[in-house]
């Protein structure tokens, strides 16, 4: 039985997790204080994912940049591709929280959405 020690990254508590594995199968997660920790532990050893945050340019608004994020977590291996896809994106103000900035980023099926309001 393989044992992997992780730090849960869901919230700043940073619970120390112990994930017990039998081959590719997760047998048990311990050390977590909430359900998110269990889910994270299982995912991290099989298919690690992250929420990616960045910024894109905005024109005609009260700010020059608008912050964005992936609406859901995406596979870790797709992070750089995702950020690269945002490099030349430019949007027009107004932008509102939750507006889709790029749909299906880097073939992940996940949209990039705005995380701040930029009014005209």
């Amino acid at each position, binding site marked *: 039985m393989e044992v992997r020690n992780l730090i849960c*990254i*869901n919230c*700043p508590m940073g619970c120390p997790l112990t994930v017990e594995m039998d081959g590719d199968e997760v047998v048990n997660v311990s050390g977590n204080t909430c359900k998110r920790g269990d889910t994270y532990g299982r995912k991290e050893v099989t298919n690690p994912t992250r929420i*990616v945050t*960045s*910024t894109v340019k905005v024109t005609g608004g009260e700010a020059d940049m608008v912050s964005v994020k992936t609406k859901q977590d995406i596979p870790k291996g797709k992070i*750089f591709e995702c950020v690269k896809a945002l490099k030349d994106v430019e949007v027009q103000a107004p932008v509102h*929280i939750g507006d889709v900035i790029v749909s299906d980023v880097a073939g992940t099926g996940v949209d990039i959405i705005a*995380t701040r*309001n930029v009014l005209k």
Partner: protein
Amino acid sequence: MRNYDIVIVGGGPAGLAAAVSARQSGIESIIILERDKELGGILNQCIHNGFGLHTFKEELTGPEYADRFIAQVRELKIEYKLNTMVLDIGQDKTVTAMNREDGMFEIQAKAVILAMGCRERPRGALNIPGYRPAGIYSAGTAQRLVNMEGYMPGREVVILGSGDIGLIMARRMTLEGAKVKVVAELMPYSGGLKRNIVQCLDDYGIPLKLSHTVVDITGKERVEGVTLAQVDEKNKPIPGTEEFYSCDTLLLSVGLIPENEISRGMGVTINPVTSGPKVNESLETNLEGVFACGNVLHVHDLVDFVSEEASAAGRNAAAYVKGTSVADAAPEAEICLNPTAGVRYTVPSTIRRARMEDNLTVRFRVGGVYKNCFVSVYFDDERVIHRKRQVLAPGEMEEVKLTKEQLLQYPKLEQITFKIEEE
């Protein structure tokens, strides 16, 4: 001169939450004075996720978290002035401020809530030898440049200090195409949250060198490189361990200092450990009716706890204005909170039982890394709380909850001692 019941200095997370809770406690006349051009404070540049799990039970980015509170402030029609700098507050709670529209003006407040936040410790405070070339930034300045202005401070980066902002910027600069070569930390442990080491450094293979510091900066016009060296237990560089890293940028993430110039000016007593005001159970300073919350009080790791603390300050300021807190406060000896044996400070520093809410969260930090130890709380000589902890570290704020009921059972209680014990 205009009159307000409550004047809140600062429109960041602390000021916003304090304003909302004061209004919900029935105070109509409230004004927030904010020096930036928008509300939200530092959250506006913290575009990463991880905010709000405690407050909203969902994971938000900084701007989204700020927006939740800004929306409440607007909905509750709480007044605020942007681009407005508070210059001075008198002991009589006369607030002197200025902006481009009103010029210099004065407001007479019944209560003041200090919510000015903190600033980054600058290079000047570090005694790093070397020239003063371009390319040396505090991590928060770099964060603002990248996330709000859209500029990259450099391409090859070394970071000194493992505070959370430095760790977050290591990831951010990497994602934007920079090469972050190393993060050096003077102490033998990280100053930031564990989760940030994992998701900002480990995820991208960025090395963290503990017990290391910058001993030289090379370059006259622009940073060309820095020399790191290992330090001994007295934090002195060990000769022969020097290592040169070529880079064009050095980011400093070496601590935050509460911004208390206004507080000091009005005669607020400052705790030398936190650099923030000394407060009682109501988060009230030594000046009656002057409250403090958020990073101006003590530097937090987590905005959710800032909001929680600021809500309490807002409620308490409201009670002060309405006179309810004074009415039921029988003159009684204050209980002193005594941080010792590993506990560096507590917020609050004193408790008056009569004015305490049913539940009181005491927050504190420890002075070193402790493994498999106990957080103990003594009421005078009796140990009443003894909680096992796997790890305690200076980078992570701790808390203990006390109840009014519990304290009323000890009518003669004079001192509550907080300590870390091995067993």
